[in-house]
């Protein structure tokens, strides 16, 4: 095992400040809260901003397919900032999952469109599924096929420009692309409105087959691994921001003549939470750096998968814990619509389910560390 450098690079810090500035300017807590009052709020302008203006849609696309050829480490920085801002963006669904899948099956045209930020894609799988695939029927042996079936609860399932479909497993895996005009979507009011879910239906929808067999299966595995790591980084951002807001609040809020942050009952909870959040940060950067090394051929798939499951399962739990503590330690204010804590709580709880809850991720970890039941 080569040594994993865990300190941020200058490039990453520059990236961080430009992403933070974007969300500070264009997606503050007040505007995010509006998504709950008007479920039809158009967020496409914000998507164009990160994807085109900052060029972040190109991050995970190799240079030979028209991308920036960056690694999971840079994508993790972006995701962390998205989490801090609870930003309603298609970064995970389109910028990471769909993009990684397109790159994995060497779908050059699609990868190019995504990299340019001209198009946003969604993969039709149920957000809480540990596997990126769905029970869909894909008929046809050649380059074109028809897709039928319904998938419940697809991330950013409404409003995508194109839809990726994954059916079958192992050597029977098939990855296909369906244009939005052939897809019926029904967005539902989502617990977390910053990443809206939709039921997606295909009725003999014409599709282009992008890949089949082992190459397609490998592309799916890669998307699952990177997806978990980038989601973990987002969860870390949620957790750290919820923690920071709470620390600031308990220093200022006074009861019984002194700051509530002076009471040991609160200090000790914050010390424990600080440890948990700090460990989340270490685990996510560790996983992202291992993934970057894997992308460069310097780590095994087993190692990166292990790290993704460690970071993923831990961050799922700690982000929810941090958001729950934030609500509790803000007291009555934590229960109000006015304070932003509920945005973090909703995002953290919904994030906890994405790509499999923590226990499902630990179950997937068991065979990798030889601790099966």
């Amino acid at each position, binding site marked *: 095992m080569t040594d*994993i450098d865990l300190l941020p690079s200058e490039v990453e810090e520059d990236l961080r400040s430009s992403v933070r500035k974007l969300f500070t300017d264009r997606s503050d807590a007040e505007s995010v809260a509006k998504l709950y009052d008007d479920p039809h709020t158009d967020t496409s302008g914000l998507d164009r901003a990160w994807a085109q203006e900052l060029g972040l849609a190109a991050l995970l696309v190799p240079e030979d397919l028209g991308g920036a050829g960056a690694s999971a480490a840079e994508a993790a920085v972006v995701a962390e900032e998205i989490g801090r801002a609870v930003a309603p963006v298609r970064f995970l669904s389109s910028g990471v999952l769909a993009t990684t899948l397109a790159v994995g099956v060497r779908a050059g045209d699609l990868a190019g469109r995504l990299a340019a930020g001209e198009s946003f894609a969604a993969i039709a799988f149920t957000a809480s599924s540990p596997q990126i695939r769905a029970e869909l029927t894909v008929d046809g042996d050649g380059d074109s096929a028809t897709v039928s079936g319904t998938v419940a609860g697809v991330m950013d399932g409404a409003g995508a420009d194109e839809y990726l479909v994954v059916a079958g497993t192992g050597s029977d895996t098939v990855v296909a692309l369906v244009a939005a005009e052939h897809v019926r979507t029904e967005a539902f009011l989502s617990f977390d409105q910053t990443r809206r879910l939709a039921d997606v239906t295909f009725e003999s929808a014409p599709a282009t087959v992008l890949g089949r067999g082992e190459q397609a299966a490998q592309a799916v595995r890669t998307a699952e691994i990177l997806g978990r790591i980038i989601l973990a980084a987002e969860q870390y951002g949620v957790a750290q921001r919820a923690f920071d807001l709470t620390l600031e609040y*308990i220093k200022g809020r006074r009861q019984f003549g002194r700051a509530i942050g002076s009471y040991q009952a609160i200090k000790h909870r*914050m010390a424990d939470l*600080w440890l948990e959040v*700090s*460990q989340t940060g*270490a685990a996510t950067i*560790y996983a992202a750096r291992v993934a970057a090394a894997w992308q460069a051929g310097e780590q095994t798939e087993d190692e990166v998968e292990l790290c993704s499951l460690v*970071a993923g399962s831990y961050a799922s739990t700690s982000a929810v814990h941090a958001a729950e503590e934030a609500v509790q330690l803000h007291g009555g204010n934590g229960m109000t619509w006015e304070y932003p804590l509920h945005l973090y709580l909703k995002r953290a709880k919904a994030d906890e389910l994405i790509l499999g809850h923590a226990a499902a991720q630990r179950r997937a970890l*068991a065979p990798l560390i030889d601790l099966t039941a």
Partner: protein
Amino acid sequence: MSTEPLSAQQRRIDEAVAAAQAATTDGMSAGERYGVLYDHGLAWVNFPAGDGGLGVSTSLREYAAQQVAAAGLETPPRGSNTIGFGMAGPTIVAYGTAEQKKILRDIYTLDTIFCQLFSEPGAGSDLAAVATRAVAEGDVYKVSGQKVWTSGAQNADMAILVARTDTSVPKHQGLSYFLIDMHAPGVEVRGLRQITGEAEFNEVFLTDVEVPAANMLGEPGQGWKVANTTLNNERVAIGGGSPREGGMIGVVAQAWRDHPEYRDPLLQDRLLELWVEVEVARMMGERLSQKLAAGQPGPEGSGAKLSFALNNQELSSLDITLRGVDGLRYDTYEMRRPSEYSMTGRIPGYRYLRAKGNSIEGGTSEIIRNIISERVLGLPGEHRVDKDVAFKDLPK
């Protein structure tokens, strides 16, 4: 810190290792070999030249250890003189006179074993409440009082001692720090039995023990500050830099693998959860050591002790549960004086009981949480009603 480039410092380490290798001969005793390392500045490389070091950056300690090992040079087992290496040494080099520093070589060669006489029955977490008196009489101090929870006192030649030299000032201001001879008249060591059955630690009774004034480290009344140097080193010495599945998790994971009959599916997730907890703590330790090596502050250090204690306790408890009645077979509750011990040694019952100490020794987890919340998070300190009261006027 030195402004010399790290590469140049590494070169000096390489040269010292080569010279030590040349000076080491087959016929030497272990102590003589350790002495060669000391004389070449390889005992504590971050210490000044002449005091067992080379004056290089603390971050190069690991590098030096690797070079020494690669050269096939034998180093003293740290566990034989834990207090000497980790606490007495760094404190003596920071505050000692030239005469006092001469003992550093004996610490490294294991000719002088140290223990620590800090805690008392009435001064545990509140260490500054030490009541042991040291009264000046000519060029000696006469020391009387009781110390407790003293690991290894039965094997020690010397001790680092905190005692009260002035009761007319508030508690933090009246302390002084001494090096005392454990073989001196008036020092009585009694084994203090622990919940495991054995006695790693002791009660130490001091009755009119004469300590030369020249053995005071620092100035009279400076004891609290000097003691904190020791305690900070203690917290750095614990935790950090272990391989995946190092420590207790490795023991429990192996038991799971070796015994299919232990694999209760309802306990599996708890084991996996703890595996993940230990792994993320390891990753944080890894990042901390990289930060420290890059000269960045790493407040995570105090967090490492907290997670270590929690995880050890949870794992050793699960270990018993997994094994069923086999987990309840104890080896011996006989009162013994172990010369060394291992957190992962013996049997599950012993490990479970011993791990209970992990959240108490070296600062309780409650005190660590105070430290994190006050020093890392900047939250207000605890109310201290005794802060400005002369020690003699405090209610006892």
